[in-house]
């Protein structure tokens, strides 16, 4: 068994280069075409890296705003899908890091908890339901598990991107697997 490699990633759904060039030049219609080609992939990543659809929507919005801002820098050296995937991961990690700093300073009120609570206490179905179990993981293990196992990113790359020590990445991954197993029906 091996981690997912780039070769496992489905073919880039990007429209042709002409659409990308038109979006680079400021054509909003072309940008919308790019959005439709990639929104599902980006949203899936955002949803699994965060804990709920609300936060995932915010993250996906940030990713596509950054795509618009940085699209002129895209040089066709890789597929747009690969380039956007990296942009999305960086945007998500940056946002989650600043959120962590913010929440460390501000303690949540009961109302915050009531309103923002993810479905963390919902009972799991009998069938293995990873989509519902992943959000129950703590932030660090969840991000490492999603990036490494679901997205196929090598552990050393995760360490570089997140600023975590490689050993910490391994610990997070171990904890994520163990925790998920406890959440799954035997």
């Amino acid at each position, binding site marked *: 068994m091996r981690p997912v490699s780039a070769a496992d990633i489905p073919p880039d759904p990007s429209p042709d280069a002409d659409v990308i060039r038109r979006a680079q030049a400021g054509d*909003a219609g072309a*940008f919308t075409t790019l959005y439709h080609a990639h*929104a*599902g992939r980006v*949203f899936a990543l955002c949803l699994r890296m965060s804990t709920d659809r609300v*936060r995932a929507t915010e993250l996906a*919005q940030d990713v*596509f705003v950054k795509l618009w801002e940085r699209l002129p820098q895209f040089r066709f050296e890789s597929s747009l899908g690969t380039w956007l995937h990296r942009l999305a991961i960086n945007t998500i990690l940056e946002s989650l890091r600043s959120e962590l700093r913010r929440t460390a300073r501000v303690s949540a009120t009961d109302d915050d908890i009531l309103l923002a609570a993810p479905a963390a206490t919902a009972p799991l179905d009998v069938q293995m339901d990873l989509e519902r179990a992943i959000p129950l993981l703590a932030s660090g293990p969840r991000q490492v598990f999603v990036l490494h196992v679901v997205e196929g990113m090598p552990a050393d790359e995760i360490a570089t991107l997140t600023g975590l020590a490689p050993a910490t990445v391994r610990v997070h991954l171990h904890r994520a*697997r163990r925790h998920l197993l406890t959440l799954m029906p035997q």
Partner: protein
Amino acid sequence: MTLPVDPRERRLDDAARALPRELAPPSELLGLVHDAIASRQVRALPQAAAAPVRTEFPRGLAAAAMLLVGVLIGASGMLLVGRTPASRVASAPADIPSSPALAQFASYDREARDLAARLAERRATLRPETISVIERSLRQIDDALADVRAAIERDPASRSLTDAARRLYNQKLDLLRRSTALSAS
């Protein structure tokens, strides 16, 4: 190094790799992206093409439309709470953008208005205790939103205020969506 030895962990990894690569984003996401790009004006979308499905209104008509939106949202809030006009439920805190910095939240307001209207139609299907919880939560969000929007008007460049408003709007939409789904079930 990262490959699990435990067969159960291997099965877990297999299942994780088999998760769908794409998940349908919420329908409002594209509008939110366009709004955010328009508000930041880093590399502004051309007006005509930015939102091909929307119509550009003359300034006066747009203001009138926003006024109508405010009235509708207020009305939908009253519908939700029955005949208690004093209650302020399911309404946007300040629905008429008085500064350009607030225009970026127009799509949130539209969505909230639609959901509130739908919820008001199904009010009779909800238990009174449920309605009470929904109303209280919406009131709290709206009060907080009013404060944040006022702060944004004073400091339109503040990213943290904008982020706070987005979170509150998303909380409101999420609550309205869940409440609407609850009333439909």
